[in-house]
């Protein structure tokens, strides 16, 4: 270690000559920043960066988009983050539903959706709640706010996901995980420590150039030793205990459920749904929605991309039928998606 300590993080990366390592950045923001900063250029050939399933839009199942379209066709006003509007469902997207006369409004926070509901009492407003532990507290807050105001026209369509069981499902896809700083700012570090005890290695990473390079240097230096480890390289923001009040809010409003991840299938206990006492704000119940199952475009390899099993450019649709302007798969729609980042930053040219 004394030798390691003399080098800068960038030097540790560029001079690494140990065993080959697969490092999976779980978080979509990490994927984007790694491309934006050209960080792959600092890595030796035996270190492979894999873009994992950490973009909430990318892992949202096709059936969820179909459900949202069904709601738009049955009188609901859909409020959603902009990224979801162009994500393809089985036959169309919310953009095509809007063009056909459906009401689809882009909002920037769940509380904006509540404000919209307040100002449009004659509309039945549904907020599309996607995302991980980072964004769930805001959706829960919106529900509590709507209830406190006595709004009768606001509900959630949930497809929220949680990371713990996803890591377990992905454990064979990588040697070291770059854990998402935002998620663990909420949930704390205990899960990461438990995973290390089970043989899954990881480093918690921040989002600036310095934080990312430092986290990768730690991943490489510790990964070379071959023993399971966990290091919090983002202690400025992530505390061991996380944000207990946010976790308490999630647990008050939502409960774990099995969840379908695009590309990964159903992972037991990896989703969140509204608790029974919140049935009056659960859009599936409010609108008595039938069971809807989606079908992805069979040529799209988003699923393998999300598992790190193939590169975006290995997909036959990449850059041909599927571009950010005309996306077939969700990974090409979202700015944080691996295919989108790969395409926009020149992919293999990097």
């Amino acid at each position, binding site marked *: 270690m004394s030798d390691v300590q003399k080098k800068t993080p960038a030097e540790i990366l560029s001079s690494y000559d140990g065993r080959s390592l697969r490092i999976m950045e779980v978080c979509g923001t990490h994927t*984007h920043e790694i491309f934006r*900063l*050209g960080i792959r*250029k600092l890595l030796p050939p035996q270190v492979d960066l894999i873009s994992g399933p950490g973009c909430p839009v990318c892992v949202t199942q096709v059936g969820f988009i179909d459900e949202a379209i069904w709601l738009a066709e049955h009188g609901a006003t859909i409020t959603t983050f902009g990224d979801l509007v162009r994500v393809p469902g089985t036959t169309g997207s919310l953009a095509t539903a809007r063009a056909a006369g459906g009401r689809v409004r882009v909002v*920037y926070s769940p509380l904006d959706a509540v404000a919209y509901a307040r100002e449009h009492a004659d509309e039945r407003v549904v907020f599309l709640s996607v995302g991980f532990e980072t964004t769930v507290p805001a959706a829960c807050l919106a529900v509590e706010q709507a209830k406190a105001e006595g709004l009768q026209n606001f509900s959630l369509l949930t497809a929220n996901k949680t990371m713990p069981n996803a890591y377990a499902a992905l454990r064979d896809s990588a040697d070291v995980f770059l854990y998402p700083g935002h998620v663990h700012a909420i949930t704390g570090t205990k899960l990461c420590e438990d995973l290390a005890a089970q043989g899954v290695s990881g480093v918690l990473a921040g989002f600036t150039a310095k934080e990312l390079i430092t986290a990768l240097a730690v991943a490489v230096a510790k990964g070379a030793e071959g023993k399971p480890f966990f290091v919090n390289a983002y202690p400025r923001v992530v505390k061991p205990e996380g944000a207990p009040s946010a976790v308490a809010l999630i647990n008050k409003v939502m409960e774990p459920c099995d969840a379908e991840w695009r590309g990964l299938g159903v992972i037991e206990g990896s989703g969140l749904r509204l608790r029974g006492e919140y049935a009056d704000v659960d859009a599936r119940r409010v609108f008595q929605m039938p069971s809807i199952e989606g079908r992805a475009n069979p040529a799209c390899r988003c699923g393998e991309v999300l598992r790190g099993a193939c590169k975006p450019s290995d997909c036959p649709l990449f850059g041909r039928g599927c571009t950010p302007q005309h996306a077939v798969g969700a990974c090409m729609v979202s700015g944080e998606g691996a295919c989108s980042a790969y395409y926009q*930053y020149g992919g293999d040219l990097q």
Partner: protein
Amino acid sequence: MSDKNSGHVTLAMGAGGKQTAELIERVFARRFDSPLLTADDAAVLDPPHGKMAMSTDGFIVSPAFFAGGNVGKLSICGTVNDLACMGARPLYLTCGFVIEEGYPLQKLEQIADSMATTAAEVGVTLVAGDTKVAGRGQVDGVFITTTGVGEVVEGVSPAGAKAAPGDAIIVTGDIGRHGCTILLERDDFGIEADVTSDCAPLWASVKAMLDVTHDIHVIRDATRGGVGTVLYEIAGQSNVGVRLDATVVPVDPAVGGVCRMLGLEPLYLACEGRLVVIAPRDVAPALVEALQACPYSVGAAIIGEVVDERPGWVVLNTEIGTQTLLPQPTGELLPRIC
């Protein structure tokens, strides 16, 4: 209550009769007064010497009033700058208005004031105009189209296909302010920041450069799509690579802060008073010096170079010393920005 005193534009004011004449008299004629602007059907003008440049543009910005300007100022700057980019001194402008029924006359007068002030500053004459009124909801506020004619300075012929390896790339000031201003004025994000549009007429800056040299390869105004889109267009047209130094691209700290919060790239935010200039490396420092002496380009800087490698691509030297491709433009960030 008569139309004249109602304070709002009415459909009758667009019908071509007496009330139209009153609207034109009250709002436009006295502000745009010149011997060339008559009540006849067309302006009769002396032709420019040498080559003539001509351009037209429509302006439908929402909101019509923003920090640093309004749709009126924008409508003069936009067309004047298009002419200036061809090395042409702006001579004549025409303007067409489509105004929504019910639009406050006082605001229309403010817009006309801005147009007159900006045109006078540039030395361009408004020689003809048209006014139509559309029913409520058929347009949003005021839409303006301006068409301009300019006199090309002899021996000057900048074009997007003329960038050559070895050229320096200059921007005439900090980037992205107009796009950022409009973004904040729409208040979708609930962010407040002290940002003012860069909307400005740039003929004086171009003239200052042409006084230094006529050997300028490309001049483009970086409007919709921003500097990044312009550079990709030039890289494609000239079949060259563009290399930018990300650490020297001038960005106002407030604009940079907003971009970081929203995950936006300042290189893709619209400008309305910034040029991208490409010229041989040896004249670039003198051009920058000349630009910095002009009020709307004091922040001019060399931000990169034209290279042989990777034709068609824009490569960024990043803050950590790596190189990365600037993501290709993916279309409009916001509708109705200019």
